[in-house]
């Protein structure tokens, strides 16, 4: 590897720009590819897959040199809207799973630092908070408040972003009403299909910690088995 290639990878990691290192395993020749880059349609697909699923991809080498594609992705981030009880185990479990967690809640009594040690808190209104966080395809957004005036602005920003996961806590009835509101706000059916509600895999969770497990499991599934 050329020193300047390594330097460029580290620079992309530093500025949170996803990049793929393509190595010809026969010659050792290397290229750096960003989303949309690639010499052929097959290569662009390999690059997109490596970035999206965050795994290395090796071509079989039957029709040309064997190429190894290694993604260097920005950190996974989870943005939790609502500093409610479930947010406490959710932020702990998500942190263990490798996510940088930010909890958004403009209600100061909820988003108290002593309730969430070591977690980034934002007291901005959810839409403003998500705009300033800058959602990308490595972000998951989960709303927990059940309150349309907090959840809905967050969802509207999330739906206009590339976030790989959007989920909402709340009953089926609440969720149906939420989807009707988003539809009225101009979102298409394809947008609404991105919203997981009620959020979490159906594993019979009862306690807040168990609900947090089911949410992180569903986020993991969306990340690894899209």
């Amino acid at each position: 590897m050329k020193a300047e290639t390594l330097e460029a990878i580290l620079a992309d990691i530093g500025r949170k720009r996803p990049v793929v290192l393509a190595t010809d395993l026969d010659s050792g020749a290397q290229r750096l590819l960003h989303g949309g880059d690639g010499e052929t349609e097959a290569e662009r697909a390999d690059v997109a897959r490596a970035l999206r699923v965050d795994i290395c991809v090796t071509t079989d080498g039957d029709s040309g040199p064997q190429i190894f594609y290694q993604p260097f992705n920005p950190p996974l981030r989870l943005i939790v809207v609502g500093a409610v009880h479930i947010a406490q185990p959710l932020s702990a479990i998500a942190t263990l799973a490798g996510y940088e967690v930010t909890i958004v809640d403009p209600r100061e009594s909820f988003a108290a630092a002593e309730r969430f040690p070591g977690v980034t808190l934002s007291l901005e209104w959810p839409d403003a908070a998500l705009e300033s966080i800058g959602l990308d395809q490595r972000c998951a957004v989960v709303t927990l408040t059940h309150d349309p005036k907090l959840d809905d602005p967050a969802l509207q920003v999330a739906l206009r972003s590339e976030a790989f996961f959007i989920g909402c806590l709340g009953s089926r009835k609440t969720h149906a009403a939420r989807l009707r509101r988003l539809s009225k706000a101009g979102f298409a059916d394809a947008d609404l299909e991105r919203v997981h509600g009620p959020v979490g895999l159906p594993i019979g969770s009862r306690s807040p910690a168990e609900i947090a497990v089911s949410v992180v499991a569903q986020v993991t599934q969306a990340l690894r088995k899209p």
Partner: protein
Amino acid sequence: MAPMPDQSEMEVLVAGRDWKAAGYGVALATVVKTWGSSPRPAGSHLVVRDDGSFLGSVSGGCVEGAVVEEALGVMKAGVPKVLEFGITHEEAWAVGLACGGTVHIFVEPLQ
């Protein structure tokens, strides 16, 4: 609590850059393919310095010694190569790894 994964891979790459900048010969080893159960996934790195120091892991301890030896040769030759290791049941038992894995490791000089 900081996120755990990837941090160490980043540290390995930074060490490679810093060692090179400090004037050492450096080689980078990367797991490029695995079959069966193998302890480290594709993309795992080990960086080796010309005095034999290394950082990172490509197998969880099983083949690091051999990779470091090969890496020193790659630094001298200036040409990359692909190493192949099968982890036998006996060896796997001896170092406490899952059985029967095979790994391909790409070793390249940092130039």
